[in-house]
């Protein structure tokens, strides 16, 4: 019996049983309700009460067994597991049917369980965070046991090619040790992010200013969704576009000016990433610019400033914290963006200031390390998690700063 079969049998058994429990309990409750005896709750609640008493023990038993199985402590054959599960469910159902009396407060009982269920759902988001942090940290620790953390942060050479030999236990003195210096990778990430922001900030900000200050209500309602199409295009599509259309174009233009550009230049993914980020920048800025009180504008205009002067000297400074927070969120988008750089940027770490050369980024290296056919334990594969840790820390810091900036901003206006 495979796991899939087990799941199938589990639900195929549980759902009809639950329906049966509901009708049985509701019927019993309705039978109690005669002329002068009144139930405490609506009959449906007694039905749900029984369903809960059927499902919870069954799910608890199967969950306990699967946890034991997952840790490799104890395994029972499939049919026995199913039998134990349904026995627990049946016992629960029998107990709940015995509870059904006119004065029994089924509504309160059901609501308590439902509340617990909602709370459980809410904790899943916390478990997700813990899961991300733990999965990244544990593997990173294993990586840093092999490669000193200082070498990882300050090294300027990334040559992991010999890592698999060590993983296979075949390393000897003739093999150069693998080098995991990530400075060129961070530099590449920084360069591509910088290019992206050089595109996204002016275009996004001026679009936002135009939409919020100049455009009519109707025009704004048309323009905003059109800009947001840019955010809805999958990144793999941008990557294809950058690699097939934009990169050759850049190589050609650079050539006509007498420069040599690599097909994996940093400019193409940077530009396209910038275009992808325009809607983030413009939508968030648009919101904060519109949140600036009208009285500030009226005051400035009454003093004789032109509209542009009002925007430059009054509206933008007032909206500045919000714009900074939009900027930081856009930066965290850019450094975490994967597909565009995987498809259009280079694979070779390259410490250079020239955007026409090939460069690589943190996300490219993560994908490269995890899609190769090296075993999971090699330092090369584990380096993905160390880079992931850097990425996680960077985005969290950016997010925290942007939250703090926004909070300060709110205090000024409310």
């Amino acid at each position, binding site marked *: 019996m495979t*796991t*899939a079969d087990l799941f199938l049998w589990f639900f195929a058994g549980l759902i009809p049983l639950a329906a049966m429990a509901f009708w049985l309990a509701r019927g019993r409750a309705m039978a109690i309700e005669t002329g002068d005896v009144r139930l405490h709750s609506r009959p449906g609640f007694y039905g749900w009460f029984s369903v809960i008493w059927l499902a919870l023990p069954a799910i608890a038993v199967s969950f306990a067994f699967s946890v034991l199985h*997952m840790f490799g402590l104890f395994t029972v054959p499939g049919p026995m597991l199913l039998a134990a599960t349904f026995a627990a469910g049946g016992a629960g159902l029998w107990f709940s049917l015995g509870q059904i009396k006119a004065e029994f407060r089924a*509504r309160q009982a059901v*609501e308590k369980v439902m*509340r617990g269920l*909602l*709370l459980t759902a*809410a*904790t899943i*988001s*916390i478990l*997700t*965070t813990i899961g*991300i942090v*733990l*999965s990244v940290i*544990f593997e990173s620790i294993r990586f840093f046991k092999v490669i000193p953390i200082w070498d990882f942060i300050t090294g300027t050479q990334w040559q992991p090619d010999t890592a698999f030999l060590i993983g296979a236990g075949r390393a000897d003195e003739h093999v150069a040790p693998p080098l995991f210096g990530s400075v060129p990778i961070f530099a590449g990430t920084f360069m591509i992010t910088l290019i992206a922001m050089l595109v996204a900030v002016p*275009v*996004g900000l*001026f*679009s936002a200013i*135009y*939409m919020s*200050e100049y455009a009519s209500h109707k025009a704004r309602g048309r*323009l905003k*969704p059109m*800009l947001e*199409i*840019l955010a*809805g295009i*999958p*990144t*793999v*599509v941008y*990557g*294809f576009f950058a*690699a*097939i*259309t934009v990169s050759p174009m850049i190589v050609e233009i650079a050539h006509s000016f007498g420069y040599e550009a690599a097909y994996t230049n940093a400019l193409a993914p940077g530009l396209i990433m910038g*275009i992808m980020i325009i809607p983030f920048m413009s939508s968030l800025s648009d919101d904060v610019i519109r949140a600036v009180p009208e009285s500030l504008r009226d005051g400035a205009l009454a003093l004789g400033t*032109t509209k*542009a*002067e009002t925007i430059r000297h009054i509206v933008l400074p007032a909206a500045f914290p919000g714009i900074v927070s939009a900027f930081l969120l856009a930066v*965290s*988008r850019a450094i*975490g963006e*994967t*597909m565009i750089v995987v*498809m259009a940027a280079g694979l070779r770490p390259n410490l250079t200031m020239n955007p026409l050369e090939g460069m690589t980024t943190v996300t490219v290296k*993560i*994908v490269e390390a*995890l*899609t190769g056919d090296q075993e999971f334990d090699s330092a090369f594969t584990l380096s*993905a998690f160390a880079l*992931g840790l850097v*990425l996680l820390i960077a*985005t*969290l810091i950016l997010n925290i700063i942007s*939250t703090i900036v926004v909070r300060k901003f709110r205090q000024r206006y409310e």
Partner: protein
Amino acid sequence: MNKEANNFLHQGANPRKRKRERADTRFRWYGLIALGLALSFLVFFFVDIIGQALPAFKQTEVLVSVNYTEEAKSNYNRAVEHKLTHIVSRAWLRTIPAYLEAHPEAVGTSHDEWVPADSRVDQYVKKHEGHGLKSKYQKEVDALQQEGKVRSSFNIAFFETGDSKMPENAGILAAAVGSVFTLLITMLVAVPIGVMTAIYLEEFATDNRFTRLIEVNINNLAAIPSILYGLLGLAIFISFMGVPRSSALAGGLTLALMTLPLIIIATRAALRAVPESIREAAYGLGASSLQTVWHHVLPLAMPGILTGSIIGLAQAMGETAPLIIVGMMAYIPEPPSSILEATTVLPAQVYTWSTESMHGYIERTAAGILVLLTVLLSLNAMAVRLRNRSEKTW
């Protein structure tokens, strides 16, 4: 009266004021130019993608006489004239033995048939650079074209097959089925949990430290790069829980965690938009908090929740990076039949094709992108229409 004062009185002639007015106009133009740039990129982008994709919907076919001999059963190259074996599609040739097995009565007959051409021939006929067809075959194809034995027809195979090592036979069916499986799992996991979390936070939670922790946490999760969800999926779902690698289950669960914050945020906004008076009226009639939410608040918030869910799922559908990490870029020629089988999804298929070297894959990639964009844009348009239609002011 000196000159300066004179200028001050005749304001129209004031050079300083003219300068300011010009600056004012310029500033307005900056905004227009920025918008123009963004929108013209959009137009350029769509024209370019569509231009690259359209040829893929046409497949070149050649008229050849097929000899269904006994010999062709074991050596399919014998079914057509020797010089044509490099002109017709190898993928089609390979189907001949199986066809003869299934139709023994056809053995010994011979027909003139329109069959798909090899990808290199296809590219050559479409006059694409880098078609890679050798010059001796080029002459062959030219001769066939002279005789009218080459035609171009709608590429139905693109929608009927999975991935293939031969571009003329590569299609999106397997990836489309994989996308449906993966998204079903994402939907079944993310929507209930997301809506339940939002209901808890909006309707039940008291303002305590735990609630604030969840709220901060959800905002942080929404900002975490998608590739880190891939690392989570790899470490937790695949390594720890033992979910099969590359399966729709692993991908769907990973995407579900990724879309969860979006659905929670959208649902909370929808619940908050339901006026307090509705809740108070329900309480006044003796409803419990759960009954109030279930019978009154949730139905009223439903359009908003649906809109948020559709947008979240559309985003999950276009996501590639975390799925590559959990191994969903495998070579999948057949559509999967269960959620535990190795699967690929549309964007991952697009990525796989984009890494292929043969020129025939480029237009396939673009065509795959066109299909993906069509689905995503219609999903988004649906969400926007739903939002506009159900927008209610209380």
